[in-house]
């Protein structure tokens, strides 16, 4: 029977299946970080259990780490020390601060070649959906589930439904992967993917780089989806070539045969299908307090349709009808597991070269991993950011969430390449506008939301 990409990967990981029970799935890679793991390790100790496959488990520190010189707060230190102790006790490889391999958990997995097509990957973090860009089934889990995977290398899960989001056509100039996913969420809603695994399809998706596909899959959870996936193709295989953990020689040939067999079969059906014309997408900016509340950069803050929108406008300090271009942020944040990869930094730097950040603005560039930082520096991108007036930081989750020293003050407005514009997400009272790296960079220069094209002639 014709199957979807998701159905194939799911079926290949079922360890046990019984009527009326969730399927038991085998986990190929378990990513661990400091925030959602301490109570899981405690649970193992209490029950006298061990980690079944430490060799399929990798840990890093990202949420809490300061990205500028200076100490972390004592509570953060306690959490990072707990992870170091737990990894030592249970024999798990840990990339801690100071290690060149340290970085945001969803950035380092793909970078090292640990993320491969057809794998089942979990992590105690909702943005685990990022890894679906490779045709892996990857989703976020809670701490009880982290403990379950540590102990058994498996996870009982109800089989989600399937959904196809097809974006057909050529993306208009200036429309990035971030605009694609924000456009999708604005159309299907923050609950639009609930209970489903989304497969992103169509020529516009195929045309994206691996970095772009990761940006799209990363934000699947913001549409409520369990996971997002893109079928592996030559772009995927080229990205994986010569990554440290990717297969080589005869193994690569066998792996390629398998990877090529994963794409959705002709004639396979989805429980739900959404089609979007690429030509209708445009650079966009979120105006509210969930990622579905997004408008075209060319547009205006919309009239509030309901009480939730009204509350969002009040929190954001915005009035309906205000042109998006007239909104002036105080802070620019380029980074996160959504847009902290080398390609993102290149895009932003291309806009910033020879230009200056508008006076009075605070601007941060935070690479997603220390290796990305090193790679960016070898291209001289750090010089471009610094010369423009950006702070050039070490790797971490940084201002994506208020768990480390990088945060917004109450009322502060931020153009952010991260993934969530929830109330207080970047610091209590902070106001977040989600944008692409190119828009963030152009906005830094102009002092109000704009695209790189708006900057013609602006220094």
């Amino acid at each position: 029977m014709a199957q979807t990409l998701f159905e194939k990967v799911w079926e290949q990981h079922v360890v046990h299946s019984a009527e009326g029970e969730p399927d038991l799935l085998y986990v190929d890679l378990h990513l661990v970080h400091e925030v959602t793991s301490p109570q899981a390790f405690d649970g193992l100790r209490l029950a006298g259990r061990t980690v079944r496959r430490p060799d399929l488990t990798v840990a890093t520190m990202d949420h809490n780490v300061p990205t500028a010189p200076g100490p972390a707060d004592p509570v953060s230190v306690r959490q990072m020390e707990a992870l170091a102790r737990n990894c030592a006790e249970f024999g798990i490889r840990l990339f801690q601060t100071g290690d060149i391999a340290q970085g945001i958990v969803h950035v380092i997995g793909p970078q090292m070649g640990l993320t491969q097509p057809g794998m089942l990957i979990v992590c105690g973090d909702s943005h685990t959906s990022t890894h679906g860009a490779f045709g892996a089934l990857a989703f976020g889990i809670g701490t009880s589930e982290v403990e379950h995977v540590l102990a058994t290398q498996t996870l009982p899960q109800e089989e989600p439904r399937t959904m196809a989001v097809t974006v057909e056509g050529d993306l208009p100039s200036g429309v990035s992967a971030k605009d694609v996913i924000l456009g999708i969420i604005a159309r299907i809603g923050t609950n639009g993917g609930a209970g489903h695994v989304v497969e992103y399809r169509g020529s516009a998706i195929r045309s994206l780089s691996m970095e772009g596909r990761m940006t799209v899959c990363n934000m699947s959870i913001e549409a409520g989806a369990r996971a997002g996936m893109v079928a592996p193709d030559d772009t995927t295989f080229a990205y994986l070539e010569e990554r440290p953990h990717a297969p080589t020689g005869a193994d690569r040939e066998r792996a390629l045969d398998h990877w090529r067999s994963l794409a959705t079969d002709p004639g396979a059906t989805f429980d739900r299908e959404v089609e979007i014309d690429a030509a209708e997408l445009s650079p966009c900016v979120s105006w509210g307090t969930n990622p579905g509340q997004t408008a075209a950069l060319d547009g205006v803050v919309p009239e509030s349709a309901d009480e939730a929108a009204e509350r969002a406008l009040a929190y954001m300090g915005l009035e309906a009808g205000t042109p998006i271009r007239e909104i002036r942020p105080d802070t620019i944040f380029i980074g996160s597991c959504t847009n902290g990869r080398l390609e993102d930094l290149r895009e932003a730097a291309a806009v910033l070269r020879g230009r200056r950040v508008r006076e009075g603005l605070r601007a941060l560039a935070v690479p997603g991993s220390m290796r990305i930082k090193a790679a960016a520096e070898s291209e001289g991108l750090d010089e471009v950011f610094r010369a423009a007036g950006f702070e050039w930081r070490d790797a971490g989750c940084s201002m994506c969430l208020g768990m480390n020293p990088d945060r917004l003050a109450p009322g502060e407005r931020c153009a952010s390449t991260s993934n969530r514009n929830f109330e207080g997400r970047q610091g209590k009272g902070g106001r977040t506008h989600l944008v692409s790296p190119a828009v963030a960079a152009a906005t830094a220069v102009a002092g109000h939301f704009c695209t790189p094209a708006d900057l013609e002639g602006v220094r």
Partner: protein
Amino acid sequence: MRPFTTHTGTAVPLDRSDVDTDQILPAEHLKRVERTGFGPFLFESWREDPDFVLNKKEHLGATILLAGPNFGSGSSREHAVWALEDHGFRAILAPSFADIFRNNCMKAGLLPVRLPSETMRTLMDAVLEDPATPITVDLASRAVSAPGVEAAFEIDDFTRWRFLEGLDDIGLTLRHAEAIDVHEAARPSWLPIV
């Protein structure tokens, strides 16, 4: 986990949609390495407003949360569930839940109950009218009752059984240890090891 059979209590009416886990428990409080003690930080930002529903003295001691659609969206933090439990909630009634949040509730023993929007509206209005309205969640018979309300809810047999017995998932999974060994032995050689 603590078994759940039937529970009667008063409720807090949180009449908002899309309440995300950053609101339930802000990220700065995720730094504890213990599983307890999150209750004081539940809905922290909103609780700065003395009129916020959780601050009202008539809702003190409530054990059931009435919520709007898509409750628990966003981050996978199970800490949000722990904070709700730590505050004293035993069940959450809503028209719909975000997937990961609902999963986390079921692991931690906080019962998520999906009810039709109209039923939720009736319950919400009843509690807004009279905060002392008692609500009973009976898992054995899969029903929610309150004065003037009798509503059945759906929950699959397996999940219901786990809640009724208070069963630990790891123990259940280890019944299939042999199947795990078999699957593991057949995994392709190219798959990465760390």
